[in-house]
């Protein structure tokens, strides 16, 4: 017993001492990446979690993709063309592309993919964006023609989505797509251990330039403070960060590079206009007027973020002073409440997910303090993500602090909320003819300037109706060691450019 104790003692001491000089990192050519949340599944068409996209976009590719300025650029399609009235889209596919299992990519795979997405039984996440597709022609293996029921300009950018990734027709037929990742992308999935680790290896036969690393090892580190520690310890090369508090610690760190990309996702206070007293326009407007959006950013996100209107894609943004009540105006807020007969205030129940996004609870707390100034008592209900999503989908809330995903095109971004037929239109809590009408015009209009004007009007109108109070966009963060080169942050948060990354240790 005693001898054992002694041996164990020595072993422990040795381990302690061994740990102190720092853990040597082997100099392999594999990129080690850390992130807090793991993918929730491998089926590219049904996954909706951002965390899943970040994995699947390395494995699967869509027909087109978006560059850092949100321009549509070629991926599996080399070129494309709308006919004059935007009712037919023809795409020319890249030649010589193979799936990871070795099978050839051709127009049959594209047709099978979109038929699967359009099949209601698939429950594809992006189905609503492709409903104008009436039929798909494949005149030859490298040409695909989408015949549309009506003009649909946003279709093109809707194609640039993980949820519109091309899968092989065999995998779709056999059902293997649900469990096996077989794409055309730069990386091949070797192993996925949920909540722990994902191993990807470079696709030697990828059509593009690269990848220049041998593979990517994705580690799930649930706590971002630990990710930060790992970056500093040099045990990881690259990391995705969500928490602005953690990101601010890296701003002045000379050894770690922090990438900030303007994001499309927006933080918003959703009001449920189907509940009293939020069904009164003036009440919603009063809430909007009482909130200093910059103060929310300064406190909840430590100043990391920008005040935003409803549309986050840069090409469609308008100056915030054109929007209703973007300057805090307590007098106006009070008089609006008075007009609504609610001068004494009321109690507002706000739901927030407890860690998603990391700033949600802090945002709710600051709003609580601000709304108290006009006599509105905010009760915060902090919910676990799954419960939050349940309630959110059922529109079972007075108000919700949410971070919703953005899209480069305003129509694809908001059709689900602000049209009569949008599948999340109950969650939006408000709809009127003007909104529906503006969205319909925006979808059909082909002239970019006219579209911009339509959506500028949309933003002015919707902020005045104040169904939601748009707050801010937080930057998308990635952090990396200085020797990692070639990564281009993308507003869609896409990691696709990891294919171009090199390790120059």
């Amino acid at each position, binding site marked *: 017993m005693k001898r054992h104790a002694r041996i164990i003692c020595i072993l422990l001491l040795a381990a302690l001492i061994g740990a102190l000089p720092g853990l040597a990192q082997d100099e392999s050519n594999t990129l080690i990446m850390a992130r807090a949340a793991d993918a929730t599944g491998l089926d590219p068409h049904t996954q909706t979690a951002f965390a899943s996209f970040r994995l699947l976009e390395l494995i699967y590719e869509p027909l087109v993709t978006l560059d850092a300025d949100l321009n549509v650029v070629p991926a599996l399609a080399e070129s494309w063309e709308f006919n004059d009235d935007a009712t037919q889209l023809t795409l020319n596919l890249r030649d010589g592309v193979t799936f990871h299992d070795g099978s050839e990519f051709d127009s049959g795979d594209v047709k099978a993919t979109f038929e699967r997405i359009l099949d209601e039984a698939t429950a594809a996440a992006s189905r609503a964006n492709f409903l104008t597709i009436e039929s798909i022609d494949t005149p030859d293996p490298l040409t695909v023609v989408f015949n549309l029921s009506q003009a649909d300009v946003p279709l093109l950018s809707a194609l640039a989505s993980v949820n519109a990734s091309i899968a092989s027709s065999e995998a779709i037929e056999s059902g293997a797509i649900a469990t096996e990742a077989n794409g055309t992308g730069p990386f091949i999935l070797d192993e996925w251990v949920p909540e722990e680790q994902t191993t990807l290896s470079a696709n030697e036969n990828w059509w593009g330039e690269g990848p220049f690393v041998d593979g990517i090892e994705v580690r799930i580190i649930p*706590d971002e*403070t630990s990710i930060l520690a790992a970056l500093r310890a040099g045990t990881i090369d690259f990391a995705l960060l969500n928490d602005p*508090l*953690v990101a601010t*610690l890296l701003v002045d760190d000379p050894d770690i590079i922090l990438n900030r990309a303007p994001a499309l996702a927006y933080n918003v206070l959703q009001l449920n206009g189907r509940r009293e007293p939020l069904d009164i326009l003036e009440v919603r407007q009063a809430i909007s007027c009482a909130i200093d959006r910059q103060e929310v950013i300064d*406190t909840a996100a430590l100043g990391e973020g920008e005040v935003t209107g409803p549309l986050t894609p840069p090409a469609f943004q308008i100056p915030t002073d054109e929007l209703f009540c973007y300057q805090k105006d307590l007098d106006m807020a009070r008089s609006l409440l008075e007009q609504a007969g609610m001068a004494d205030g009321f109690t507002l129940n706000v739901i927030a997910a407890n*860690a998603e996004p990391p700033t949600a609870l*802090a945002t709710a707390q600051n709003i609580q303090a601000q709304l108290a100034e006009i006599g509105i008592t905010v009760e915060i209900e902090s919910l676990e993500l799954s419960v939050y999503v349940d309630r959110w989908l059922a529109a079972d809330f007075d108000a919700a602090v949410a971070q919703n995903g953005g899209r480069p095109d305003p129509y694809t971004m908001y059709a689900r909320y602000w049209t009569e037929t949008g599948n999340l239109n109950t969650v939006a809590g408000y709809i009127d003819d003007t909104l529906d009408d503006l969205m319909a015009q925006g979808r059909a209009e082909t002239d970019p300037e006219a579209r911009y004007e339509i959506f500028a009007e949309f933003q002015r109108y919707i902020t005045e109706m104040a169904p939601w109070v748009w707050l801010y966009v937080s930057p998308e963060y990635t952090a990396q060691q200085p020797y990692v080169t070639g990564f281009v942050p993308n507003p869609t948060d896409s990691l696709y450019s990891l294919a171009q990354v090199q390790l120059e240790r």
Partner: protein
Amino acid sequence: MPVKIEPPVERRRGQGLLPRLLRNRSGTVGLALVTFYLLVGLFGLLGITPRPSLEQVPRDRLKPPSEQYWMGTDIFGRDIASRLMEGAANSLQVALLSVATATLAGTLIGTTAGYVGGRFDNLLMRVMDVFFALPALLLALLVVTVLGPGLYSTAFAIAVVYTPIFARVARAPVLSVKEMEFVTATRALGLPEARILARHVLPNTLAPLIVQVSLALSWALLTEAGLSFLGLGTQPPQASWGVMLSESRGIAELAPWLMIFPGVAIMLGVLGWNLLGDGLRDVLDPRLRGRES
């Protein structure tokens, strides 16, 4: 397995608990800490804090400790000292509520089971074993998930965890006491069972229970903090020491006072109940009397 039989505690007249406790070093320090903690908690409960604990002063956010803000401010510019006081009140409520519930339920189950004996005893104790077979935190996690996070469900969760412990603590002395002469004698006199239980059996279980209560309070504090740390206990904006620590994690590097003060508060709180428990045990348990000076 041999069951240790403890002699029934006799009331010592003329020597109150407090003076005896004050002659005990652990007891004195523990009592002082607990009293301080109770006072702070009381002030917190009544809202007598340097500043309103929820007041946000955005221009004063993340200020280090100063004359104006004794313990600094957080990202909203809320006063940490005031929030610690409110936190004391909240964790105190959870701790007292949960331990009171567990003590009542546990004592009731334990004494009844021990007194009635037989199959009834067996059944109740097996049920308690079921709860024992699950680690405390896991059990508490489950209960909180079922009830939804919040102050009361946290208190309930901790009560569920501690009820079986109190049941065991209460049962053991009952087993030994109920066969003793004075009990059999009163039974022979035809007194109602409930009255025998209340008048003669229960007082003898008091000593171990009091010690256990004090220790359980320290554990309840820790568990509440742990649950809050995992995001399942007290819900923001309400302050609890666990919540404050959990909130501080991301920015402790920037603002260490956000971690230091709640950390010290938790430790002192737990320490106080522990020392008090030790002191009480020394004073109430004759076998150990005189060992600690």
